[in-house]
């Protein structure tokens, strides 16, 4: 237990350092990002029919929220605000960035986790099967499917699914998150939520599935050659018990893959949400970049990267909990 606490403290310290690095990096990126939102807004207003003076004054309202002072002073202000958990306000809606992020995050976190868990479960089962049947055609086909899907970018998967199930054979919604005609949290509303989430979740699932199959198959094949499996077989243990041994040992590396997959899927959400017009953090990030809503942009980038860091920490800690060798090694330190 003492070892776990020490590991937890170490992971948190490392995580905080990583968060600091990320927020510094985010600040630098945003500071050097080209593009003048005021001028772009001015042009948009002119095209809408505003007179030049009206458009200029209207667009200049954005300036009021622009950071002032030297870059270092801005950086100190930024970090100081974050330490107070103050992410600022959206330059456009004047709503707290935390509120904006919370509103968007739920549309990303749930589908991303659902898709990753589904692909994890599917990948583990199919991976074990592919390893056991590795000399058969079916095993080869399963392995090939993993390799193929691992190589296809997630946005291509998304576009393919959209083309097939929303255009060629339109049985699923192409865009949106829920039918607004339903009262929130009625049965119809929840069904509509699920219905609209099918394609994004399927995209996340299929995109991550290939990695899990290949990792699981490789891990199982390695474990199959271990002495303890041979010993179990020689002792005449039941096949199901041996399978449990295999699965429990082989699955350990998958948790690292899982954490990395969550990270990859999170970042992939930027493209997937755009394809399905699904209103999560990815869409928010793209939208804020396009409009140079720098406070929202910084908040979204920070949230996405912090989520990835947390996923990694959780995976590492979980790994130590379920693997006695690591747990004991930690206790000995």
């Amino acid at each position, binding site marked *: 237990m003492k070892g776990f606490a020490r590991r937890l403290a170490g992971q948190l310290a490392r995580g905080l350092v990583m968060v600091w690095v990320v927020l510094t990096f985010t600040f630098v990126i945003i500071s050097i990002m*080209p*593009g*003048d*939102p005021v*001028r*772009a807004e*001015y*042009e948009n*207003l*002119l*095209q*809408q*029919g*505003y*007179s*030049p*003076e*009206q*458009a*200029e*004054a*209207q*667009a*200049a*309202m954005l300036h*009021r929220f622009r950071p002032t002072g030297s870059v270092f002073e801005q950086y100190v202000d930024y970090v100081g605000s974050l330490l107070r958990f103050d992410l600022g*306000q*959206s*330059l*456009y*809606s*004047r*709503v707290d960035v935390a*509120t*904006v992020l919370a*509103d*968007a995050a739920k*549309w990303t976190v749930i589908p991303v986790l659902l898709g990753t868990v589904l692909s994890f479960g599917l990948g583990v089962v199919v991976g074990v099967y592919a390893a056991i049947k590795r000399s058969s055609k079916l095993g080869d086909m399963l392995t090939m499917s993993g390799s193929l899907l691992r190589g296809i970018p997630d946005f291509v998967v998304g576009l393919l699914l959209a083309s097939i199930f*929303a*255009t060629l054979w*339109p049985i699923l919604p*192409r*865009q*949106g*998150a*829920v039918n*607004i*005609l339903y009262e*929130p949290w009625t049965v119809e509303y929840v069904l509509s939520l699920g219905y609209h989430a099918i394609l994004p979740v399927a995209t996340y699932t299929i995109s991550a599935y290939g990695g899990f199959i290949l990792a699981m198959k490789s891990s199982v094949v390695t474990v199959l050659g271990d002495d303890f499996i041979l010993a179990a077989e020689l002792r005449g243990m039941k096949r199901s018990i041996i399978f449990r041994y295999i699965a429990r040992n082989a699955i350990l590396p998958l948790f690292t893959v899982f954490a990395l997959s969550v990270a990859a899927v999170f970042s992939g959400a930027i493209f997937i949400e*755009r394809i399905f*017009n*699904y*209103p999560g953090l990815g*869409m928010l990030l*793209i*939208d804020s970049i*396009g*409009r*140079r809503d720098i406070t929202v942009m910084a908040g979204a980038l920070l949230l996405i990267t912090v989520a990835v860091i947390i996923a990694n920490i959780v995976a590492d800690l979980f790994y130590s909990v379920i693997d006695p060798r690591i747990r004991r090694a930690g206790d000995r330190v």
Partner: protein
Amino acid sequence: MKVTRITATLAAFALAITACGGDDDEPTSPDDGDNGAAEEGEVNRGGVYTTIVTQLDATAPPNPFNPDTNSFLGYNAMRLAWVKNHPTDPSDFYPGLASEWEVSDDNLELTVTLHPEATWSDGTPVTSDDVVLSANIAYTRGSGAFILDPGAAGAASDVEVIDDKTLRFTQDPDNPTGEFVNGIMDMTIVPEHVYGDVLPADFEETLEAAQGEGEDAEEARDAVSEAGEEVASFDPGEDISAGPYVLERINPSEALLTRNEHFHNDHLVAPDQVIVRNYDGNEQVWDYLQAGELDSSHFVAVPEDVVQQIEAVPGNEISRTYSPVVAGLAFNQSYEPFDDVHVRRALAYAIDREQMVSVSTPDGGDAATTTSGIHQEVVDEWIGDAVGELDPYEHDLDAAEEELEAAGMTKEDGRWLLPDGEPFEVPIQVVSGFSDWIAAGENIATQLDEFGIESEILTSPDFTVYQEEMAAGDYPLGFWLIGLGPSPYNIFQRLYGQSNGWQVHAGQLSYSEPGEDGNWKGGPETIEVEGHGEINPGELTHELRTADEERTQEIMTILARATNETLPVIQLWDYINTQFSNTDRFITDPPDDARRVSGVTSLAGIWIQQGWVTAVE
């Protein structure tokens, strides 16, 4: 009778749009029978109407002064009137909350009568007090704030509350503006009983002080701006609307608007509910249209093959109407050899605009017949017979060769060389995602290459970068929207405004040298125009803000001629306002001049409230 000493003209500019000095001395109203609005009993009611908006933000308040507002103009946000898409007159309106309006012959006085039945969705009548408060708020919110600059045209006038439903606006005769009527009628009205406490109690005194000069005035102007921030951030909580709909609920993908039973023209409103769907990219709109899910959509750029796919969907219909927007290829004359008018003329002759449009945007534009700075559909009305004196710059490679030779260039091995022997190169800057600009740029580059001029397109990652870099003078050539009428000042401000060196500060015009203060076009301050001698195009453009009709036409003629001779831009095509609707659930049939309303992108709310949408039985 209550007289409120505020600067009505200023206030009206807040959420206002372009205008010119047209004499709208004929009062118009919904009862005139000549404005195209439907009559009672003409619409079939019921159903859910689906349309689109962009940048929907579910966290933003239903406050029309918030930049990400969930008050949608025409649906749950109302103006006094809606500006028609008139080619030359920005003071021609369809009724909004105002049922009648009358402008004095000298354009100094405007009397507005609110619709007698106009009522907020909570049952409170819409009154003159709402208009006065909205006028005050208008000063604080950006687009009206500029008038607080000392010396700005149109400063200081009165609004007089005649009765609960009638107001009289008067502009200062010593400082009039042609935008007076347009600015007021285009004002968004909010309920005084909801927004009344947002402005400080002494706001009107602060406004008066802000119009002066000196430190106190400066402080007052800051106070007005701060009040604007309060207004922008204000969350009224519940949506209180005087429009045909009220915001029922919203998620990040869609908003649901339901019928406002108190709306004064509810009998003309067909759909019981409206869903406005969010889009962040044009391709999302194309998908909705291809699925037949939208009852109408406003203009978005659509490639020809996608137009055909959309048209093939049963029930889908396309309308193509006038848009005042013109696409041009603008020169930065700080770059050699584009400072030489012969080079600019050579390029104008060398580009086959018909071919370019047929390839790049056949459904979205008409090839320009000449370069005048004015949309070709209205150029006759502005400059009359002088149109015939303009060089049409028809595709003529011989003429292009002559011009290049006049610029000292030579042709060797089929390639044009600069006087110093270096290849003549034409880089064309476009924006990623602007499909029509990219296709047109590629076609122009191909045409020029075939003519012996090295040309390529360079792509900016997005519009904000494009704007910044263009203003910084980084591009020798780039696409640039011109026209933007009907206001004559707005038309030529695109050519002879800040981008070409002329700026207005505190009502005073000044000129900055190329490369300074956003002058990226780098044209000369004065130019020789055949038959008119030496002119200062910036000064003439500035004069258009207050010029009378006769002088306006005179200036427009001179500037069109100057633009044609000196070519700060090559006029490429006039945009066509392409819109889509679907007839399966509703018939959407607005008049052509309602298919574009300044400052409003999602137009269906205006069409619905005028009775131009009816449910299919």
